[in-house]
């Protein structure tokens, strides 16, 4: 079943007097449980597509259905609710709240989702344990390493049990070893049934995915399934 159904969407920005077509007539479907990488050089429109998929932005034209609901016609509050309940964001720069500790950062989407304090603490602790940060709950972002910060961000994305996890260059600010650890974590999450959409410009990162959508100049250049190597799964 489709989680995401995008038909003929375009996005046009007006920059001064010039019109920029960031996306042009893009059609994509993504099923539940898929692990998709969106690739492309900078300026290819992959950030715009990612903002669109994340309901941070709406298309100029075309149809976007999320779990069968028409996102193109939603108001600000409905978009906020979809982002809160259905989408888990992981950013390149982690984007944690600097003054709050790990636990509170992970709790935040639940606060906005109206979950009571006791349940919030339980779910947030569970999510942090899931990413092996059970012992860092009361550390602030500046007391954590880059990899740990990104795992806090992943815990925050997971905590609401969203329909999709949307990761924008999640390893872009990490060294190779830590980046690999993060990619292994995504692998596990995928195995546990999560739908993952990865935006990257690095081939070896994209290769973790099972399907790669290549964008160039605002159009889909290629959409192909990847022949998987055998990956030793961690039990």
């Amino acid at each position, binding site marked *: 079943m489709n989680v995401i159904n995008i038909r003929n969407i375009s996005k046009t920005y007006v920059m001064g007097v010039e019109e920029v077509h960031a996306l042009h007539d893009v059609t994509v479907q993504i099923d539940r449980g898929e692990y998709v990488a969106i690739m492309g050089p900078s300026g290819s429109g992959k950030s715009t597509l990612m903002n669109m998929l994340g309901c941070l932005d709406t298309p100029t034209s075309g149809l976007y259905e999320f779990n069968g609901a028409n996102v193109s016609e939603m108001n600000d509050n409905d978009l*906020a609710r979809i982002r809160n309940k259905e989408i888990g964001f992981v950013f390149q720069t982690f984007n*944690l709240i600097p003054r709050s500790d790990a636990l509170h950062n992970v709790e935040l989407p639940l606060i*906005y989702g109206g979950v009571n304090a006791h349940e919030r603490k339980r779910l947030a602790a569970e999510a942090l344990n899931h990413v092996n940060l059970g012992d860092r709950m009361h550390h602030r972002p500046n007391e954590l390493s880059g990899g740990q910060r990104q795992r806090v961000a992943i815990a925050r994305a997971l905590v*609401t049990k969203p329909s999709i996890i949307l990761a924008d260059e999640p390893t872009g600010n990490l060294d190779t070893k830590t980046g690999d650890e993060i990619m292994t974590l995504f692998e596990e999450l995928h195995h546990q049934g999560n739908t993952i959409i990865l935006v990257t410009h690095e081939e070896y990162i994209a290769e973790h995915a099972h399907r790669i959508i290549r964008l160039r100049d605002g159009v889909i250049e290629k959409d192909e399934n990847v022949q998987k190597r055998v990956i030793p799964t961690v039990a």
Partner: protein
Amino acid sequence: MGMRIADFAYELKEGLAISFQAIRANKMRSVLTTLGIVIGIVSVTLMGTAIEGLSRGFNDSISKIGADVLYVQKWPWFGGEGEWWKYRNRKDIKMPQFDAIERHATLIKSATPMAGTRAPVKYKGQSSEGVLTLGANDQYLETGGVSMDFGRFFNQAESDGGRPICVLGSEVAENLFPNETPLGKTIRIGTSTFRVIGVMEKQGSLLGIESLDNRIVVPIEGFIRRFGANRGIQINVKAADIKNLDDTKEELRGILRKARHVPPTGEDDFAINQQEMFIQTFNAIGAVVAGIGLFITALSLFVGAIGIMNIMFVSVTERTKEIGIRKAIGAKRSTILLQFLVESASLSLIGGIIGIIISYPLSLLVNQILPTSMPLSVVGIAILISIIVGVVSGFLPANRASKLDPVEALRYE
């Protein structure tokens, strides 16, 4: 789709937590920002305290006039400017009119005629200046609400007989008899001599001007005989029941019109004065004081509000990225709006609390001049005002924050 109360509570709590973190992170800036609010709140609490003191002092004085006492005089206390000649040409009030009141009035508890003179007062080598010698009857204590310190007041027989005896106010007693008891001593008032039979308790002054203790009371009959038979008197009447004050006044009016032979269509040729006239005048003065205080308060609160608005705009800009993050993970516009409103209200409230803390010792200082204390209601009002100012001045910045585009905000560095 209404917002659940629980959701609102979580967001409010989160907003409070965020604002305290933010204020703690910028302590100096926050305190300086609230300066206008601090001044505004200090001025509102001090004004409240001063007004409280004024009205307390006034009520103190006014109670000495007695709310249930009517004063029959030639002149009204207030009003009637430019009609000086009319009042001057009225017939004096004389003893027969007092007798008529005593005989016919049914709604009164007590009544005394009153006449006064400022004759020099002497005892041996001591003399006392500016003493008001009053002629009154034995009901003076009752109508005036005065009590005795020691000795006794004269009785009805002594009053009617115009005996040469007198009762001293506490100030007169202290001035003439610094080292001995005045009881039984003979003093000279003008050219006449009087024997002291008692001293009245200290009463203080009327509005801080006219001392009520620099007085001597002698029987009215004797007073008229010694200080002049032609002078007019005034009549002080205490109503039996303050609830019937208007009826009592009407009854007195009827008796006096008849006794003074006022024709049925004629205007009263006397005035019946009462405490209420003072209260009205005082309220007018109080309104002016409050008006000035309100103006100063409003001005400084306005300056304070601008300060808070300014710092909140700075705060919104500084935290653009954070607003983007919060929006990305599901904060609605209303959530962000609430967060910043809570922050500006907290900021303003801190100013209010500082203001109250500063006002307290200042109110003790005011207390040295004017017996008063900071009323609790004023503290409550000050807190309420500072919260309202915070919410109002935070609205524009909070609204800007709530309308930020999440994509743009996330990109902000």
